[in-house]
């Protein structure tokens, strides 16, 4: 009895070990040392018509800097390969002519479109980014001033791989909230809604004390065919983000009523609510924004012991926020691009009325009446209450 079971056990063990042979892979297996890991993609227009240039930023494993080898200069830890094709997919495959390893895309972080191409329209170049299972829906989409290729080739500090640097610029943008960013999934939502205008972050190379740095500071606005029609500056971008409810943090500088000094308020939290209504048959939108902030810095020497001062700061802050939203709205209405998704708000709340408005929405939007109601609070003073120059009237 015992012998039978132990023999059985050995046979079972043998079979289990045999299974290991089959776990190593199948037809679609690609070993890590045969993969070129792509982290960034740049798509530019080509001098030849009907063709595009695709630049891929590939991690160069032979030059990745470890803490031991860092600082020794030498070659970059990334490699930029540019190839040409009639479609994104063809160009990516053409890369294999110069790259000894086939490109591996799941780790891609950012997709940058050149400004020329963005102005011609990106409509024809997006499909592969959604269809191919290697691209993730969380890839960031950006537009570059100038060539996307140059953005990818810019050396970056702190993070030695530009694509990671750009990704971090985007995730850290919450601390100023002055640029909108979009990933593939949200871009699809904006395109399929038909009334909402797609947006993307704009990136450019700037000279910063003699060194070339990448800077994220504008928001590109597209029409429905993904032609770039304009841009929002940092103030307008934050106005947009207030309405989208994406303001996480940032600094609002308000001047005191006499115009002699200012308060810097650090945004802590913000909420918004968009209410689409019909007033006497005309569509109107009410945007309610609730925000709270901390006093981060002031150059005013007024005594902050009094609650009125805090109310004053809050009301100044209200005006500043309203001003930002109004600036964004004015720009968007001028571009006839509903970046805020007001059309979608009507679609969701009043689907029947929307059917009549849908075809002429661009026109309706450009003269849409928008009520902006801002309620805000300045909560805490930080480690000191009044400014050090404050004269106490005691």
């Amino acid at each position: 009895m015992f012998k039978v079971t132990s023999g059985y056990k050995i046979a079972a063990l043998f079979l289990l070990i045999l299974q290991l042979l089959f776990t190593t892979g199948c037809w679609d297996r690609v070993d890590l040392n045969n993969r070129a890991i792509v982290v960034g993609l740049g798509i530019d227009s080509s001098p030849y018509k009907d063709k595009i240039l695709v630049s891929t930023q590939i991690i160069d494993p032979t030059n990745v800097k470890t803490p031991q080898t860092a600082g020794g200069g030498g070659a970059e830890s990334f490699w930029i390969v540019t190839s040409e094709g009639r479609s994104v997919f063809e160009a990516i495959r053409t890369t294999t002519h110069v790259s000894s390893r086939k490109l591996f895309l799941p780790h891609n972080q950012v997709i940058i479109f050149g400004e020329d191409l963005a102005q011609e329209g990106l409509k024809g170049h997006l499909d592969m980014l959604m269809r191919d299972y290697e691209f993730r829906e969380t890839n960031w989409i950006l537009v570059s001033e100038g060539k996307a290729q140059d953005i990818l080739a810019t050396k970056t500090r702190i993070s030695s791989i530009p694509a990671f640097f750009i990704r971090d610029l985007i995730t850290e943008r919450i601390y100023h909230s002055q640029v909108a960013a979009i990933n593939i999934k949200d871009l699809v939502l904006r395109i399929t809604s038909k009334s909402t205008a797609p947006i993307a972050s704009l990136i450019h190379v700037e000279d910063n004390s003699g060194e070339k740095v990448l800077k994220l500071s504008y928001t590109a606005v597209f029409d429905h065919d993904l032609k770039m029609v304009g841009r929002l500056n940092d103030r307008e971008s934050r106005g947009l983000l207030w309405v989208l409810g994406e303001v996480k943090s940032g600094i609002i500088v308000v001047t005191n009523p006499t115009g002699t000094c200012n308060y810097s308020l650090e945004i802590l939290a913000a909420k918004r609510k968009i209410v689409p209504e019909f007033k006497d048959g005309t569509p109107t939108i009410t945007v309610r924004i609730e925000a709270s902030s901390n006093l981060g810095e002031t150059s005013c020497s007024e005594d902050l012991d009094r609650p009125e001062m805090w109310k004053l700061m809050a009301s100044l802050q209200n005006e500043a926020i309203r001003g930002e939203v109004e600036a964004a709205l004015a720009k968007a209405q001028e571009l006839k691009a509903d970046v805020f998704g007001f059309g979608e708000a009507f679609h969701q709340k009043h689907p029947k009325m929307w059917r009549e408005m849908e075809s002429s929405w661009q026109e309706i939007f450009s003269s849409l009446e928008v009520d902006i109601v801002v309620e805000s609070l300045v909560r805490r003073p930080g480690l000191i209450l009044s400014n050090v120059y404050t004269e106490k009237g005691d």
Partner: protein
Amino acid sequence: MKLGNQTISSNQLFYLMCTFLLGSSVVFLPGVRAGSNAWLAVLLGALEGFVFLAIYNGLVGQHPGKNLIEINDLVFGPFLGKALSWVYLIYFLYVSAQLLRTFAAFFAIIMTSTPLMVFLITPLFVSSFAVRSGLEVLAKYSQIVFTTVITLFCFDFVLLAKELDLSNLLPFMDIPISKLLLATQSVAALPFGEVVVFLVLTNLIHNPSDTGRFMKKALLFSSIFLLLYTVRTTAVLGTYSTISTYPAFSALRVINIGEVFTRLEIVLAIVFLALGFVKGSLFYYCTVLGVAQLLKMRSYTPLVLPIGALLLNISILLFDEYIFDIIDASMLFPFYSLVFALFLPLLTLIVAKIRKTGNQQGDSANA
């Protein structure tokens, strides 16, 4: 005559049916054609599913402890009854071939250079092994899988919490009513209409008087789960779900928590593998069992491999462009499956009521 010679408890029936109903619906979001109103389509489809189940329960209640083939014989007489049973079995064979192919196609989308035959033969081989082992093994397997899958989905729900945007469920009812009805019908047909296959198993359940109650419980549980699942996926993806081939798969692709919890869609692929296996094997098992019963065989096991081979051939012959799978699931299956899910059972029930076949007392307890 019990060819299965294995019986399952009502509780096992519950797990088996839940796993069966979640089967392929976890990848193909049910009711996705209704866009933001997908949840409504699921709700209405589930209600239709309860109508189907009431008919099946009526049949089983009137003939406790008998299965579809025996009921057909009783109600329509030996000749017509057998002919009808063959029609059902051909349909079950066809559906199992379809399931196998859908299953293979899902994995072939990612692994493009692996031949399709690999994805067809491997699951079929394992499945035939399960079918040979019998219903009890499948039921026990489904118990394990069910618990694991529900846990995994709870986990997914939590991880997706950040991405949920309930305004994606609006606008309410802005699609044409015909579109909503089509989506409803496709939910009712797949998965709820496929429950008809359980009628082959009704003679293998320990306690026949409980069958109806547990099937109702399973249907209720699965429809609530599918409803939540649809709401979640729509809330995450919004209109993206209408262009996505596998919406639930895409929803998990957006999970990114601190660059640590990413690429979780593989979880769904594994879940689909585990759940789809139960569904496919059950259809396969019922086909084999039904054929063996009709041919009055001593045991059903010699039929497992020949029918498996036939199944493989049919699944190869189904289509060669994937688009036909989508067309079938969204526009064809909802209509022709109605014949088997609704019309034939209803006809049987009406005739059974008129001819007063079977046991009339069980009627009030289970219908």
